[in-house]
């Protein structure tokens, strides 16, 4: 009996930090946000309970357009990151030798040692009208006058893909790494060509990694702030910027909280749809990669 009690106490103690973390740092702040988002400001220092902030969002096309825009751009970034990241991950996991693999992984990691801000400035230096690429193209005679590569949506997408691609590569490498090479060989042996093997064997096998990579990348992209702000052009509004403005510039915490929640709900919805479409479960993807 006593033995059992001690065991139970140990379990409790082991579990406590996790429970506290979830409770204090995740649940409580979110509950606070929900309550905040349901307050309507009627006069200075006077608030009423209501859904006014959410109604405001629904009534103002600018807000939900920005949310949809952010969502679709994030999906595009996710798709590109997958398209570019998959071959890289495949090379690292299956083709590269043992030593090269470490080096390649390290190469992928290096950009993470630099802050978001510095990376964005790096892109600015490269892409601006008087920047490296434009100057080089002029020097080589490929173009006549300077070209501005900065301040448009394409730049934002490129910058975001660069920032998040590592989070696609890591889970992909880890699932592909767990794949027995003979599975691929069996795919060829049984008569499949390269495309069939990729489509019927490698991709289905890597699905948990693909899905978890996509979830992380989508969440990071939809929630990113610096890159779209710094690289974006005159029309590129981003939903996080909207939230920041509500909280900071307009002192409207109530509506900022509502926006934050809407972003969370929206991204969760997209991910749920993605899981449904790919036939994966969250537990499955998280456990496998």
């Amino acid at each position, binding site marked *: 009996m006593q033995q059992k009690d001690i065991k139970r106490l140990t379990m409790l103690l082991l579990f406590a930090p996790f429970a506290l973390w979830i409770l204090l740092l995740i649940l409580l702040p979110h509950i606070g946000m929900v309550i905040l988002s349901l307050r309507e400001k009627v006069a200075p220092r006077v608030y009423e309970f209501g859904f006014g902030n959410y109604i405001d969002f629904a009534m103002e096309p600018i*807000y939900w357009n920005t949310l949809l825009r952010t969502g679709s751009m994030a999906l595009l970034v996710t798709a590109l990151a997958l398209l570019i990241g998959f071959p890289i991950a495949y090379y690292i996991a299956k083709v590269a030798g043992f030593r090269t693999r470490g080096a390649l992984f390290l190469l992928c990691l290096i950009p993470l040692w630099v802050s978001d801000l510095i990376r964005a400035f790096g892109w600015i230096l490269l892409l601006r*009208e*008087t920047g490296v690429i434009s100057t080089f193209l002029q020097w080589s005679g490929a173009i006549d006058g300077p070209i501005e590569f900065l301040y448009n949506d394409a730049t934002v997408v490129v910058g975001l893909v660069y920032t998040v691609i590592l989070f696609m590569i890591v889970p992909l490498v880890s699932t592909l790494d767990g794949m027995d090479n003979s599975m691929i060989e069996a795919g060829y042996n049984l008569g499949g060509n390269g495309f069939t093997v990729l489509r019927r064997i490698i991709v289905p096998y890597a699905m948990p990694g693909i899905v978890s990579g996509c979830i992380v990348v989508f969440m990071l992209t939809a929630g990113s702030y610096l890159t779209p702000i710094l690289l974006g052009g*005159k*029309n590129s509004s981003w939903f996080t910027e909207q939230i920041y403005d509500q909280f900071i*510039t*307009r002192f*409207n915490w109530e509506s900022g909280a509502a926006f934050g929640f809407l972003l969370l709900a929206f991204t969760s919805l997209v991910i749920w749809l993605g899981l449904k479409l790919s036939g994966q479960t969250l537990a499955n993807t998280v456990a496998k990669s």
Partner: protein
Amino acid sequence: MRLNPTVAALLAATMLTGAGSAQAETLRLLTWGSYAPEELVQKFEKEYPDIDVEVTFSNNEEMIAKLRATGGAGFDLAQPSHDRIYAAQLEYDIYKPMDLSKIDTSVMEPSLLEGVKANTTIEGEVYSVPHQWGTSGLMANKEMAPDFKGWGDLCDPKYKGKTSMRLKRTILLGTAFAMGEDPFAAYADLDKYQEILDKVADKLIECKGNIKAYWKGGDDLSAMMLSGEIVASETWDSTAYKLFGQNENIVFVPPETGALAWIDTFTLPRKGKADDAAYKWINFVLRPENVTIMSSSTGSMASVKGAKDLLPPEKKVAVSAAFTDADISNLKFFANIPPGVEDMEGKTLEKIKAATGG
């Protein structure tokens, strides 16, 4: 007002780690990037060995947000602009009144002192005194845009793709003045103000095609201006002065309708714990020799008598190149923002940003 908030935060972090342990009294300063130069902080700590100075760099909006989150705790001295005190105090109760007897107000420029006092008096209590002041206006490269003189010129097709602005309230106000309105007067009648804002929004949406990009901080503005990618822009005067030091063709242009002037203040957060140290700091930076150090860091003028003479020499040239006496008397000081205006302006800015054009 002059530094990208993230850069400021990075700097602040390095400064904080540099600060010693706090067995002595600590003065926690919430201020603008460059408003607490290391040289001055060290000098202050030498003079008052029992006071440690901790600096957090921020901007108007973040200062208010930080203080609002804690109900005015966590800092001992803040420096919001003069137009951002009245409404914030009414709405969130984050400041406490000042004891003017503890400040050497005699050295201050009386017009600025009286102006700030008028702006920040609530129920007979004064909440702020002036520190640095400066203007928002235009800058132009004289070689490429010699006759640039008003807010409206930003939208002149002559400079298509060669101008920039920051998509914040300053440009709304400037454009309103350029269209012959007086937005500050309209603060009293918010319906009228909304009308003005709508007109301004139409104008700025139409103007979007003329703008190369909206700048976000002093750094990207400087880069665009120095590289010649743009020839004119809305700007803070201090940024323009800095660029003047690197290229004498780049000058600050007070718009013909008047540059918009702001005064950054000294204000005490409601739950500050080191008021005495705060007063010591205020009096310390008002001393003439310290004013020069401060101004060379901020690039702005102090609110003390004879401030122009106390500027470091290279800034003095830049200011003289920019302002005539007529310009000075034409300054439009930001009026107190009444509750609700931030929301109206915010929506207008969103509308402009979301509009497709250019």
